[in-house]
């Protein structure tokens, strides 16, 4: 009997690493502001986080309807990448319109201006003042009621962008108001875990309870 138990223990130990390491969820760390808008912009530091197999980590600026439709721009790293790439993405429901484009390579340590905004007909996606994509508003006609600025992971083992010693800075948060002027966006941390946290206890930030236009995010394990 003891031999059988030993065999089972051996199997348990050996098979444990076989656990699927694909992405398991959606976890956010950052801030948002509820406001009618025509766009969102922020400066985000690029870093090169550790990522679980088949998962991804990103940091971005976004205008959205607060539920299921959005347009965003930032940087993203998929597990197959050796370095992050710039990206933009949009989604519109209920039509099921979704598009994502990744571009070039985003250098770790660089600080880049990400802007997604619209005029009366077109949504544009800019990186450091250069437009890298557009989409007609008739394709994504959602009500722009929020701006959001987050780091995002998809597995609890993913590193939230930033470390204790070197957090990711997110600064100069702005939104384009309905008069089409870019103005400072005082944003708030929505985490249910409370002030200073993202969706996971390891996701940390220093967003003020009275709102911030710039802040840092990091992963307390790194």
């Amino acid at each position, binding site marked *: 009997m003891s031999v059988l138990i030993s065999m089972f223990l051996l199997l348990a130990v050996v098979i444990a690493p076989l656990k699927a390491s694909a992405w398991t969820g959606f976890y956010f760390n950052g801030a948002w502001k509820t406001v009618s808008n025509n766009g969102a912009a922020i400066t985000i530091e690029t870093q090169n986080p550790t990522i679980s197999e088949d*998962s991804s980590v990103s940091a971005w600026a976004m205008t959205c309807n607060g539920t299921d439709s959005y347009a965003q721009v930032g940087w993203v790293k998929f597990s197959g990448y050796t370095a992050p790439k710039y990206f933009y*993405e949009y989604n519109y429901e209920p039509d099921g319109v979704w598009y994502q484009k990744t571009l070039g390579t985003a250098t770790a340590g660089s600080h880049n201006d990400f802007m997604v905004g619209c005029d009366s007909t077109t949504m544009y996606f800019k990186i450091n003042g250069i437009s890298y994509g557009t989409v007609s508003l008739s394709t994504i006609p959602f009500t722009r009621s929020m701006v959001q600025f987050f780091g995002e992971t998809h597995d609890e083992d993913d590193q939230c962008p930033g470390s204790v010693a070197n957090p990711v800075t997110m600064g100069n948060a702005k939104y384009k108001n309905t008069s089409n002027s870019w103005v400072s966006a005082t944003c708030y941390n929505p985490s249910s875990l409370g002030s200073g946290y993202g969706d996971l206890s390891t996701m940390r930030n220093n967003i003020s309870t009275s709102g911030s236009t710039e802040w840092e995010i990091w992963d307390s394990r790194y």
Partner: protein
Amino acid sequence: MKKIIALAAAIAVLSVFTVSLAAGAFASTNNNNVPEQSVPATSETTTLPDSASLSSDSLNILTENTNFQNHGFEVKALTEAVKLDKTAAVKKANESVGKQISTKAESITAVSAKFTDTETPVLPESNITLKDYPVWIVTYHGVTLQKQGMAGGTVYADQNVVIDANSGEVLETFSYSIK
């Protein structure tokens, strides 16, 4: 005595089997931040235009796709020699997208083409101009992708990986939902 010998033999076989499994699992889960492997075909070998076109899937896969056309992409037949062949291009794309996509795609196509991106003519942090640029476009048809920016969001989509047909560099990717 026979029972003990049989049990010992079973444990030995099981141990070899499980150690092999563990080695495989480690190899498959420890690839984070590992530099992408170089593609052998990017060395000094050059694929002749004729053989490149023969190995490429049809350009029509892209030109007849409205999603592809709606995003400012243009492709023409590749008439010049390139260093990367189809096998190497797909391998490079597989490394980029990961196993979750490369092994679960309903189909994979690889088209060699002169590629123009009218929306992104120059890639950020790069001097590469995407106008009639020789590429392989590897498309993963019918895959489930993560959305960024929306909790719980996944999408049924085609993912395209645009690879420099000479250097093997992934220049850009673009993905769109399909019905």
